[in-house]
C-alpha cells in the first residue's frame, strides 16, 4: 500500500516537472506541445508487439536469420524493415529459450524495455514487486504467471541495467511444422517475449 501511494506521489511530481519543462521549451521557441504529441504518436504507432511476433516467426522458420538475430539483433531486426532509429544508440539483444534454458527479462533499476519491438510495457513489468522478485525468486514469479519451469531447466534473468534492451526468443511450439510465418506469428504473445509465458 505504501509503495502504491509512493508511486502516485512520484508520478504526480514527475508529470509536474514534465509540464514545467515543456512550458520552458515552448517559451524558448524550441518545440510545441503539438509537435511533441505528434512525435510520440508517430513513435508509438510503429512500436507494436506485432514487430516482436514477426521477428520470432522469422527466426523459427529461417535458421540463418535466427543466427544473425542472436549475433546482432539490431541488424537482423532492420532486415525486416522494423525501424529502431528512434531508439539509437540502444543495443538490442535477443536471448534464446532452449530445452535447457528459460530466459526472463526485468529492469530492477527502473523499467527499461524494448518498446520499439513490444510496444509500451505492461504495468506489472514496472511494479516494485516484479522488479524485486524476478531476480530473487524467478521460479515463484513464473508460477504466478502459470508457467512451471522444471527444476532441471536453468533460469537466466536478464537485468536491463544499462544500454542494452532484451527480448526473449521463445521455443517453437511442437506440431507447428505446416504453419506459415504469419500463422506462427499469431501464436506469439507479448509475455512470451518477456519470458513470463512459454510462447
Amino acid at each position, binding site marked *: 500500500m505504501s509503495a502504491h501511494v509512493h508511486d502516485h506521489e512520484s508520478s504526480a511530481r514527475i508529470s509536474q516537472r514534465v509540464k514545467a519543462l515543456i512550458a520552458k521549451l515552448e517559451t524558448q521557441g524550441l518545440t510545441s506541445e503539438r509537435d511533441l504529441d505528434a512525435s510520440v504518436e508517430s513513435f508509438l504507432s510503429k512500436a507494436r508487439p506485432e514487430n516482436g511476433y514477426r521477428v520470432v516467426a522469422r527466426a523459427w522458420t529461417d535458421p540463418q536469420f535466427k543466427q544473425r538475430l542472436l549475433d546482432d539483433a539490431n541488424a537482423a531486426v532492420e532486415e525486416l524493415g522494423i525501424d529502431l532509429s528512434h531508439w539509437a544508440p540502444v543495443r538490442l539483444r535477443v536471448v534464446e529459450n532452449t530445452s535447457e534454458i528459460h530466459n526472463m527479462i526485468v529492469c530492477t533499476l527502473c523499467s527499461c524495455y524494448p518498446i520499439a519491438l513490444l510496444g509500451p510495457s505492461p504495468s506489472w513489468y514496472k511494479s516494485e514487486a516484479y522488479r524485486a522478485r524476478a*531476480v530473487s525468486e524467478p521460479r515463484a514469479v513464473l508460477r504466478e504467471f502459470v508457467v512451471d519451469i522444471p527444476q532441471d531447466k536453468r533460469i537466466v534473468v536478464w537485468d536491463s541495467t544499462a544500454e542494452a534492451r532484451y527480448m526473449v526468443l521463445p521455443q517453437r511450439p511442437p506440431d507447428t511444422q505446416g504453419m506459415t510465418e504469419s500463422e506462427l506469428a499469431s501464436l506469439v504473445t507479448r509475455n512470451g517475449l518477456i519470458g513470463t509465458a512459454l510462447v
Partner: protein
Amino acid sequence: MFEIGARVRTREKRRDGHTRLPKYLERRSGCVVRVLGCFRFADDAAAGGGKAPEQMLYTVEFEQGGHRVCADLFESYLEVDT
C-alpha cells in the same frame, strides 16, 4: 579491459547519486559473458549534465541461488576476481 570468460568481482557503489550497479549485485563474483562496447558512463552523465567519458560495458553473469542473473555493468564497477 576484460575478455569473455573473465572472472570479475563488483565493487561497492562509489558515491551517492545515479548508478547502473544494482545494490543486490554489489561485491559479487561473476563471469563476463559478452563485451558490449564503449558507452557513455551513465553515473557521470547523470551527475555532469549529460557529459561523460565513455567506458567499456560488459554483460556479467552471476549465480543467484538456483538460477542465474545477467546484468550490463560498466568497467569501473568491476575488478579482477582473485
